[in-house]
């Protein structure tokens, strides 16, 4: 399709990185090219760590890209831009201002007189369905109403582009659906003063429901993995076969087996430098059991699994990938399949499970191997945690190092590969008797 409408935002070869340790850098975004035109809703879909929120902040001018070119309506972006307004996941309302004052904030900052600001704010409040709440404080409102204030505050400054950073993910399912529908109605009827919307989400269904174009990001570093147009007319039906097919297709893209030789498993970093998510062993065992049981019988379709477990991809993928790292399961083409070891794990009793888990941990997780080897080599069979943390911080930020070490500590405790004493912050080989 040849799109003749004017580009609103153009990102070309955008890079973003931050420094870790003394001289190393870790890339968050790598060579991102993205154009947003008028009259479209573009969805940025990816998991945590894919840099989707970073893209949003670069477009709005809140963050500066380390490299590449960012333009808004043809002008290079150097700081916060007029004509762009953002809606936040956490609502980000000022608790000491009333609904009305929150909505007026952006206008007042630009020296719009109170006489001119008031009718505009009232109009926005009216549009978004907040009538009667003008003098309420945010803490008196429910989550859905708070996010409506967030929308009204963004719309009142008449932005060209509305940025939305996971605007529905802090809301319960029903409230989120109502808000989505209301927003889409306003959009379709053209009652909002905006030209385009850029939506960041980790919900595949949400993206397919709302967007005209979906950009799928891959993680670590964030890159554009795929881009697709959604041509179904609004309102869209989640049960429509075309809808389901598209959802399956996106799952397929997001679980595509990557170049295993280049990266061990799906986690970023090599060997010791692999950053690992914080996943409980109970969750891992639960997932294995769910996939082993009927109706899946050892092989499950990821969208179906996400649906039956009520998990978003942000929760589901790290679990599946940890199982893949430990060689208890494999992912491909939007499916997850148990390995023979995974099946044995499900059938075993608690002691055998722990043994099996410990063996796989030491065989496939380099950090666990490293801790065990150091403990074996030392005559005292103890080692302080700081030592490993310092080693990890050569590869990743402090926060990631902390999370990774904690995960491996807990996995090691479960598999009885080594013990950890919290008060002395040291690893050892003895378990308390």
């Amino acid at each position, binding site marked *: 399709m040849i799109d003749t409408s004017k580009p609103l935002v153009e990102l070309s070869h955008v890079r973003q990185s931050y420094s870790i340790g003394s001289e190393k850098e870790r890339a968050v975004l790598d060579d991102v090219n993205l154009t947003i035109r008028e009259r479209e809703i573009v969805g940025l879909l990816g998991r945590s760590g894919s840099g989707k929120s970073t893209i949003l*902040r670069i477009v*709005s001018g*809140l963050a500066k890209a380390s490299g590449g070119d960012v333009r808004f309506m043809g002008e290079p972006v150097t*700081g*916060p831009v*007029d004509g*762009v*307004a*953002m809606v*936040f*996941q*956490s609502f*980000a309302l*000022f*608790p*000491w201002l009333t609904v009305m004052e929150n909505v007026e*904030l*952006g206008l*007042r*900052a*630009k*020296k719009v007189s109170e006489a001119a600001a008031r009718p505009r704010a009232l109009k926005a409040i009216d549009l978004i369905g907040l009538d009667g709440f003008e003098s309420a*404080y*945010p*803490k008196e409102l429910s989550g859905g109403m*708070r996010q409506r204030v967030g929308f009204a*505050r963004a719309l009142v*400054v008449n932005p060209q582009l509305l940025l939305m950073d996971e605007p529905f993910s802090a809301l319960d399912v029903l409230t989120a659906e109502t808000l989505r529908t209301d927003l889409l109605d306003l959009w379709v009827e053209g009652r909002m003063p905006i030209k385009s919307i850029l939506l960041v989400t980790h919900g595949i269904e949400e993206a397919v429901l709302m967007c005209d174009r979906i950009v799928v990001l891959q993680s670590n570093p964030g890159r554009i993995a795929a881009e697709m147009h959604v041509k179904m007319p609004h309102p869209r039906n989640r049960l429509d076969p075309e809808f389901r097919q598209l959802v399956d297709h996106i799952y397929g893209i997001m679980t595509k087996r990557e170049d295993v030789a280049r990266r061990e498993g799906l986690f970023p970093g090599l060997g010791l430098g692999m950053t690992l998510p914080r996943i409980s062993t109970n969750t891992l065992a639960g997932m294995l059991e769910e996939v082993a049981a009927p109706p899946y019988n050892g092989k499950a379709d990821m969208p179906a699994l996400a649906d039956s477990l009520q998990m978003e991809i942000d929760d589901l993928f790290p679990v599946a990938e940890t199982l893949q790292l430990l060689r208890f399961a494999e992912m491909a083409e939007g499916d997850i399949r148990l390995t023979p070891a995974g099946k044995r794990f499900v059938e075993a009793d608690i002691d055998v499970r722990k043994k099996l888990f410990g063996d796989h941990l030491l065989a496939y997780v380099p950090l666990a191997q490293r801790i065990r080897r150091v403990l074996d080599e030392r005559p005292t069979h103890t080692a302080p945690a700081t030592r490993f943390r310092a080693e990890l911080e050569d590869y990743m930020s402090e926060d990631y190092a902390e999370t990774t070490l904690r995960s491996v500590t807990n996995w090691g405790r479960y598999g009885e590969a080594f013990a950890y004493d919290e008060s002395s912050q040291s690893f050892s080989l003895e378990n308390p008797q």
Partner: protein
Amino acid sequence: MDERRIASPALGARALPNQWDLIALALGFGFFVLIVEGARGMGAPLGAPVTTDLSLQYSSLPYYALRTTLRMFAAILFSLLFTFTYATLAAKSRRAEQVLIPLLDVLQSVPVLGFLSFTVTFFLGLFPGSTLGAECAAIFAIFTSQAWNMAFSFYQSLRTVPRDLDEVANGFQLSAWQKFWQLETPFAMPGLIWNTMMSMSGGWFFVVASEAISVGDTTIKLPGVGSYLAMAIEQKRVDCVIAAVVAMALVILAYDQIIFRPIVAFSQKFRVEMTGSQTETKSFVLDLFQRTRWLRALTSVPADLFDRFAMWRFQPPKMLAVKRIPVPGQVVDWLWYALVFAAALYSLKLVVTFVGATLGWSDVWQVAGYSLITMVRVLALIIIASLIWTPISVWIGLRPRVAEKVQPLAQFLAAFPANVLFPVAVIGILKFHLNPDIWLSLLIIFGTQWYIVFNVIGGASAFPNDLKEVASNFGVKGWQWWRNVILPGVFPYYVTGAMTASGGSWNASIVAEYVKWGDDTVSAHGVGAYIAKATADGDYPRIVLGVCVMAIFVIAFNRLLWRPLFGYAERKLRLS
């Protein structure tokens, strides 16, 4: 972060870099010596003693109480000014932060009453022959007891403004000025107000101590409750002491009800957490005000003006936009470090020459010995007070009905200037021929023990109900209940209270170790008495030496005892 805690840089989450501490120490002490030198340079041999005629008639007490209160207000105003500038600078500039925050820690540890004598000399020199100098000195003394924790609380708030709110402000392109008033100051409000209130509590003690002061041959008496009390002591009038106590109590009560409660109740709207808070402060004054119509209409004018002021957009004229010369950041850093280091060295030299002119190492060891005695005294009394008050406070805290009544009383007692009651102790000691080294010690903790009481009551009230139920369900009783259930539960609160009490006790030792009743003087061995005696003699080098050594002890005490305890409590024992 719990805003209901006295903010202290000594409790910074990470240990502050040591070289900066030393630099701050040198700078802080150098500053005091400069004040003394400055005062001398002005050639202010204090002429006629600055005294107004004071009378001991009860009828003049209301007027004196008013003067005392006004002094408090003036001091708090300066403290706020200081807070808004100093803390903002520290929060916005990395280079300033490196010096200002350790300096704040040192300033907080310097015994305020110790350098009262310097400041009196300095201000009297500034306004020779006028009571204005003495007023300024008193106000400055109160200021130095209030400003530090307020500034630190504000600094901490500025550093922890929620990121999303910050992004909203930047996204709407609020100017730095607008952001300061729309986001940063409101966000800092609850913590700042709580710390202001605590500072005020502490301030009464200093206002009483600073209104009547003698340095060498100079005696200054400003009209106020403190001077009234000092005169009552000189003339051995017990009835007047009681009258002063009553007046003080009434002032503090009125102050709390009319000024602070409404402000605290009002500040609740600035809390960021979105769930309704469980402890709503009620204020009948605020309720009353919110029901009035005319009064509200009247206040809408200044409110509106403030609004404009806060939204004022300062556009620097283009001409002022000087083209910046590109200097590598590191070069500026090195220049800055060199400057700070040089200033610290100079300050150190100043202190050493000033003290070294008349005093030698033997004096230093003597003062260190005295400080050790005072330290033992503070520590022992904190332990005794803890042993007595912790069980009682836990008992109270677990009974909401009792706690509701006792809690305001404990807060009131913490605010009450205990030094008003010191003469009573002297009468007792003289009458029964008691050992002052032991019995004067009690005064040190007298005013400050209440911090332990109301913090522990607060902790016990907040103890989760399910844990209480678990304990009774499994029949956990007796010592095991104390050791495993309640003591770990209230420990974080206890540490906060005990640390505040300890800080106050060091300061109190200057008044408590050296007490007068008429012509009788009772004195204990300790650094507090050393400083008090030196002040009475107008012996400046000894005062400087005493204050410096004491400050070093306080800092060490905080670093080696309270900070590790506090860190432990926060890491392991904080519930929720």
